[in-house]
Structures are given as C-alpha cells and as structure tokens.
C-alpha cells in the first residue's frame, strides 16, 4: 500500500477496495492520496479535480463500513473520467475552448452514476483530444498528456488522460470513449488494458457526443479483473441512450471457465498488417503463439471500412458543430477545426454511403467469426510517437501520425464489435498493445482471452520508470 500523499500507486482497483474493507486503510485516506497525486500529476492527465466531492463520498463510505452497512464492490476506489463525461457541478469541456463557458452539468453521466453507486470515488476529469477528434491528446488548450513510460512521447488519444492516469499510477480505474480507436490506441501506447464494448452495450448518456453512429464508452484498468468488474458495473439498459437497451450480462463470473476452455483464435492479416512497425508485428506474434492462433485471416473490406469510418466521422460531427463552425471557427483546435470544416463541406451523401456500407462489412465479419471465437490485430501501427511528431514511416513512406495511428482500430469500431486492448508483456520496452476482437455482444470472450494471456504472463501492465513529481496544478 502506498502511504497517503503523492506517491504513485499501482495496486489494482480490487486490491484498494479490499484494503479499505479489511481496515488496512480508509476510503478517506485513499481519496486524499488520489487527490494529492492528481495535484502533482507529472503527466498532464488531469484537467479538473473534484476534491470536495471525493472526500465527502469517501467519508460516507467509511461511515457505512463503521456501521457495518453494505457497500459496493468498488467502495472507496478512486477513479477519474475523460472530460467529456458529465460531472454534476462541473462544466463538460470535452477538451475544447468552445465549451469552457457552458453551464455546469446538472447530473453525472450514467456511467459515472453507476460506478459511483458501486462505491467508486470520482477524483476528477482527464485530458483528451478536442471533442474526441484525434489519437494524440496534444490538446491545443490544455497541453499534451505525457506518456508515463516516456514523458517525451504522446499518451495516444483521444482518451489520453484516461490511459496515462492508469498507466502512471494516479488512479486504478478510468473511463474513456472510443469512436475510432480512442480507448484502444491510448491503452496500447500507455501499456494498460482498455475495453471498447459492443456499440450500445454501455450507456453514452451524459458523454458529450462526437459521432453518434460510432461513439462508445468504456473503462481502462491495469488488470483484466478490474476491467471486467468495471464493465459489469456499468452494464444495463438506459432509456436516455436509445442504443443501450440490452439487459446486463455480467462477464466477470464467466471469465475463468471461458479462459480455461478451447478458444479458436485468428490473426487478422491484409489491412491489419500493412504498414505496421516490426516491433508491433513481433508483439502480435508473441500473443498469437500463446493462443495458438491461425495466421493471415482475411476480413474482406477492411480498407473500405476504415475509409467509410474516416469519412463518416467529420461529416456527422459537423452536424453537431455547425453553429460554432459558422460563428467561432478560430476557437477550435486547428487540427480538429479543419477536419470538421471539411466534413461540413462534403456532401451528406458520402455519410449515407458510409452508413450503407456498414451492414455489408458487418456481415463479412460475421462470416469470419463462424470459424473463430476471437480475432487478433495490432492496436496501433507503432509504439508511442514523440510529442509534436507530425509524421512517421509506414511501408517506408512518410505519413501523418494523426491520420494513421488508428488505421487498425477504425474498421472494428465502424461495426461496433467488442475489443479488449491488452498490453503485450515487453519489460523495459515501449508499450505495444493488441486488439482482441470478439463477435458482437460477446465481450466475455475477449476478456477471457485477455485473462488467459495475463495468467500466462504474455500481457501485463508494467509500472513505468520513476518520474519527477510535477508542480501543483490545481
């Protein structure tokens, strides 16, 4: 256990909860320590703290425990959320300047409500690419989030603060969103676990929209067990998100049995191998060997699916931003603004074509899954690029970092399949993650495959090297 204060803490969420339940520490001490870590955050992961709320909730949990009243499975566990999630009393900035003067949220987002109901203690809000449009978290207004494994490198995005906060030992659990890869890419670059559930599995109510057709929310954690528990606690229908209709189907109780059983595993080839850095393919091989996977499985149409997601994103997002693009375009992050403007100018028929192609690609994926339980693919084309790095080489050609980090994630989120991003165990090397993709609504299979790999030591969230604690920021 780390002492209260600013020392980074790498216990799992469930270990923290056990320490509190069994009296080795208190929820108040844990909340104070998490707030202290946030105030000295060396990664620029946090953009806002809710210290009073955290301490008040923690004291209530301690009172419940003292009175032997029942508490939730995450009682006293600190967590934080990407700053596009509504937090009651806090303005939801979604990484933007545009929304800094908006009214504070009247209620927590559904996902925040559900984790809070399970006893988790919200500490604050986390940095992101503006309006979730990016893979780098080099935010023009709040600065770049730094990768805990190398402060000169990006954390990935758009949920970069969420990945860095978990990887760096600020909190054991965070929430992010994933439209084109924004959970999976930063999880990969920061070396933590992330879950992008099936489209519609978890409620997006109270998360600032980006691309309604493609938006997902999900957790980050340092273990499969924490990831599965957080996912289970957030499941269940929500009338305020019409896509979220499915009854809860808890995964955690089923993981051991599935992990111990046979799994038919394939490694996606074709589009999912083009341009990948050699170390990314080497990491994928390690995982494929461990799962005795069949190589070179083709998912027909993946390149077109990526292109369709690429086009659908700015056109649909521009609908939401139309008024602000007309009246205050220069208040946007330039990297986001120019893509939204292009989306506004492109004909709506392009977006309609992208929506029309979607079921065809989904059906192609369903046919592939007739022979496999999970499919493997890289989560990113490369380890974390440097902060400010504009280009990288893919297939010996210089290409844009921002446009290509999500090349392997976009086809999968386009059809809403569940994915666990798992960090390959490469001690002392830059983190690289793999995507473990399951059929729709079968999150438990992807989680079980990740658990099998974790138990075998093939995937693991490593502690980053020690870093100097930063200045007080909040």
């Amino acid at each position: 256990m780390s002492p209260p204060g600013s020392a980074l803490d790498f216990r799992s969420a469930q270990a923290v909860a056990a320490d509190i339940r069994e009296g080795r520490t208190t929820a108040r001490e844990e909340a104070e320590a998490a707030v202290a870590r946030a105030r000295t955050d060396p990664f620029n992961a946090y953009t806002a703290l809710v210290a009073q709320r955290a301490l008040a909730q923690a004291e209530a949990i301690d009172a419940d425990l003292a009175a032997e009243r029942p508490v939730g499975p995450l009682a006293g566990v600190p967590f934080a959320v990407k700053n596009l999630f509504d937090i009651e009393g806090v303005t939801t900035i979604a990484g933007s300047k545009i929304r800094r003067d908006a009214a504070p949220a009247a209620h927590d987002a559904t996902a925040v409500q559900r984790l809070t109901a399970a006893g988790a203690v919200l500490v604050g809000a986390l940095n992101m690419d503006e309006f979730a449009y990016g893979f780098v978290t080099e935010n023009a207004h709040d600065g770049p989030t730094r990768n805990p494994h190398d402060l000169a490198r990006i954390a990935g995005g758009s949920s970069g603060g969420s990945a860095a906060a978990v990887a760096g030992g600020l909190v054991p659990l965070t929430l992010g969103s994933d439209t084109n890869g924004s959970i999976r890419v930063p999880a990969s670059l920061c070396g933590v676990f992330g879950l992008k559930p099936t489209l519609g599995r978890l409620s997006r109510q109270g998360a600032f929209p980006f691309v309604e057709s493609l938006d997902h929310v999900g957790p980050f954690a340092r273990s499969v067990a924490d990831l599965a528990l957080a996912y289970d606690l957030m499941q269940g229908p929500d009338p305020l998100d019409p896509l979220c209709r499915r009854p809860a189907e808890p995964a955690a109780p089923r993981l051991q049995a599935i992990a111990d059983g046979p799994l038919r595993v394939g490694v996606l080839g074709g589009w999912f191998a083009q341009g990948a850095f050699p170390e990314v393919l080497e990491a994928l091989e390690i995982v494929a060997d461990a799962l005795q996977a069949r190589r070179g499985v083709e998912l027909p149409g993946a390149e077109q699916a990526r292109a369709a997601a690429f086009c659908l994103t700015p056109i649909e997002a521009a609908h939401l931003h139309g008024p602000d693009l007309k009246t205050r375009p220069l208040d946007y992050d330039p990297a986001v603004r120019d893509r939204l403007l292009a989306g506004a100018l492109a004909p709506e028929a392009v977006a309609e074509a992208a929506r029309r192609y979607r079921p065809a690609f989904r059906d192609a994926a369903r046919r592939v899954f007739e022979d496999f339980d999970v499919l493997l693919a890289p989560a990113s084309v490369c380890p974390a690029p440097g902060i400010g790095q504009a280009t990288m080489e893919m297939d010996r050609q210089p290409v844009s970092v921002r446009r290509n980090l999500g090349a392997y994630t976009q086809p999968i989120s386009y059809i809403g399949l569940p994915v666990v991003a798992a960090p390959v165990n490469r001690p002392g090397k830059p983190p690289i993650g793999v995507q473990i993709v399951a059929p729709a609504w079968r999150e438990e299979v992807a989680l079980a495959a990740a658990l099998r790999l974790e138990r075998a030591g093939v995937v693991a969230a490593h502690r980053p090297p020690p870093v100097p604690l930063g200045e007080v920021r909040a």
Partner: protein
Amino acid sequence: MLVAAGYPGYEDFSYLWSSPRMATDPALAAFLALDDDTVAAYADDRAAALGLALPPETRAGTLENLALLRRQAATFAMDLDAAAPIEAFEP
C-alpha cells in the same frame, strides 16, 4: 438533464436514419468526380451555399482534408448497391 448540460444528447440523432437517398445521388457523384485541383472551387461553392465562411487560417487545412475525404470516399462509395436502404445499424 441533457438540455441543462447544454448539448444534444444521444436521443436526438434519429434524423441520421431517416434518409432514403441513393448512393448515386448527384451530389455524391459530383464530389467523387472532383480532382485535387477542383476541390477548392467546389469548397467555395459549398461554403457559400451553406453560409459557412472559411477564414484564411482554415483554408489550406480544410481543402487538404476535403481532398482526403474525396479520395477515401472513392474507395467504398463507388460500388455500393444504390437500391439498398440505410438500416438502423445493429452490430
């Protein structure tokens, strides 16, 4: 709740599924027929029609991204079944 938060929530996007337009839409065909040299004129016409100003700081980046969208759209929009309706997507 969502009004108080000051932005449209996820229940407000039903318009996305309401259009029965075909992939052979003339607007799509015209867009796909552009080349990188004609994107600028197209963008100016569209911006004027939409009442959307393109400040000088935004122009180069916007045109570059619009040209990229055209190239990407060409990879999937050409061969679609124009008669297929757009379904409310289920994963």
